[in-house]
């Protein structure tokens, strides 16, 4: 390859030693860091057979944790979706003072540790917190109850939908909306018939990411939920409890549910990306299917 008189001089990184080393390093790391733990979860969960797995899942505390997680997602995801769409729409289609600031503020949950959010909620809604006494006298329970869990989850996942939509909507510009209004369409009509159809795949992708993060959130929720078994335990918290109880199979079985969710999310992600989500380009129903060979060498 590296012969000095070769007619085609090797490009950088073309030497086989270099190439194979790189590939080997990456594959080893992927196997050790990502594949192995997931395989262990699957193996351990079913290590005592499917019947035992079913029994573990059917445990009332586990069922309640699953219910809590689903309930949290059912509330938090739609609210954050509405928030994300509104924020992306405002940032990309209007000019207003503080636009750049809003863009930065939306990113905060990405850069701050979730536990900080949890502690912050303690200070605001806790007994010794800002609104603690008011809330207690009004007999409203936010902390150590579902509202606290939902709030903490919402904080952590606030940026997901907006982050998916903003680059796409920025690339799409305002022409389509201007065209629709110049033709006499109202704001709502423009949104539902012109904007939404052009962002739907990216939106769905953002919703799926948001959902998987809500269901998997541990740090912020563990601070505000109080970890009461059978009452305020979400699935990730419950897994930790089971593990501390030396119930490894139960922990792995519950974890396998979250892992299965991750797999579903991945499949949805790949499927949606093939439909144009996550690409900074106007997706087109008429466009040809993207060339997959480009992404999978």
């Amino acid at each position: 390859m590296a012969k000095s008189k070769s007619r085609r001089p090797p490009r950088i990184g073309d030497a086989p030693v270099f190439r194979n080393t790189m590939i080997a390093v990456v594959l080893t790391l992927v196997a050790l860091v990502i594949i192995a733990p997931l395989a262990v979860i699957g193996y351990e969960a079913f290590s005592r057979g499917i019947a035992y797995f079913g029994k573990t899942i059917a445990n009332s505390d586990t069922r309640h944790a699953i219910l809590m997680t689903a309930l949290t997602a059912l509330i938090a995801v739609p609210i954050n979706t509405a928030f994300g769409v509104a924020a992306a729409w405002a940032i990309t289609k209007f000019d207003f003072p503080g636009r750049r600031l809003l863009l930065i503020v939306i990113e905060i949950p990405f850069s701050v540790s979730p536990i900080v959010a949890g502690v912050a909620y303690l200070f605001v809604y806790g007994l010794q917190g800002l609104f603690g006494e008011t809330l207690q006298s009004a007999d409203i329970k936010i902390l150590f109850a579902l509202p606290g869990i939902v709030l903490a989850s919402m904080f952590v996942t606030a940026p997901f939908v907006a982050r998916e939509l903003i680059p796409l909507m920025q690339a799409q510009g305002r022409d389509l909306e201007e065209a629709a209004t110049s033709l006499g369409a109202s704001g709502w009509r423009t949104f539902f018939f012109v904007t939404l159809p052009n962002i739907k795949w990216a939106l769905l992708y953002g919703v799926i990411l948001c959902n998987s993060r809500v269901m998997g959130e541990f740090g912020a929720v563990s601070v505000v939920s109080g970890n009461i078994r059978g009452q305020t335990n979400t699935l990730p918290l419950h897994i930790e409890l089971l593990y501390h109880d030396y119930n490894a199979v139960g922990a792995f079985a519950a974890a396998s549910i979250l892992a299965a969710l991750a797999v579903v999310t991945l499949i949805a992600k790949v499927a949606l990306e093939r439909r144009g989500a996550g690409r900074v380009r106007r997706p087109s129903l008429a466009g040809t299917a993207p060339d997959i060979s480009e992404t999978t060498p």
Partner: protein
Amino acid sequence: MKIRLDTVVKTFDTFRAVHGVSLDIESGELVALLGPSGSGKTTILRMVAGLEFPDGGAIYFGDENATDIEVRHRGVGFVFQHYALFPHMTVGENIAFGMKVSKTKRSGAEISERVAHLLRLVQLEGLQDRFPAQISGGQRQRVALARALAVDPKVLLLDEPFGALDANVRRDLRRWLRKIHDELGITTLFVTHDQAEALDLADRVVILDKGRIVQTGTPEEVCRAPASAFVMNFLGDANRLKVTVSDEKAQIHNVTFEAPDIADGPAELYFRPADVTWREDGHGIQATIARVIDRPDSRRVLALTVDGQSIEFDAAPEFPFRAETRGFVDIRRPRVYPA
């Protein structure tokens, strides 16, 4: 519908895009806003459409003050440079969109009949079920026009309508747009930076520079009598020679030109490359040929005057002279502007 702009002003942040522009557009007229980029022409068009609101002045549609009417109630048809067709709708759905959201309710049959009619008008029969991504650029722009016409606009506004198309398609579409305009008689205002397009298409050309109107007139008026050196330069190739004016006469090397109403002192003499005759002797400005460039229909001669100012002129394909030849340039139709 007659349109009147009355000292319209628009400022973006600190940049004054439009300085007190006043303009009357007669009903049924086809007017071009012509200017270089940054001259404010698109801003003016968007203010007429209601996509931007002026900071000062007023815009009248007929006798009605339309300044504060929002775009969806203004009744304009707007055609965007990059078409802005809805990519998720077919050609037919794109054209029908305005009728479906309109307050004047139309039945489904009525809408589809009108879509078919508009498709015939823009010569795109049979493409109704294609998506915008499946048709060519020129076809997309015609769909955009049909979509704008579907809502019976009082005014048709086009923002660089042919800017994204290649030269041949542009020329065909220009002629075709003129034909459509003559058929429908709708008041039309379009923006372009291409002087050939403006002169080819418009009844009247409004030339803009730095947010101000510098000249308004028919293509003939602006071509034959450019009001300033800027207009002279912008409309086409022009040569510039430094001259000295005294007593309304411009002087350069013993050659004098009429310079009515020009103050004494240094000035600039402009002329088109086609308005030059090369002479081996006799009168004219003494010059030396520097280079001859061949073109399909003529020869372009680059020459230096005796005091070192460079000029270019067109000569017949048979022009026999080569570089280093000395002679005289005889200038026809010179125009003198203050320096």
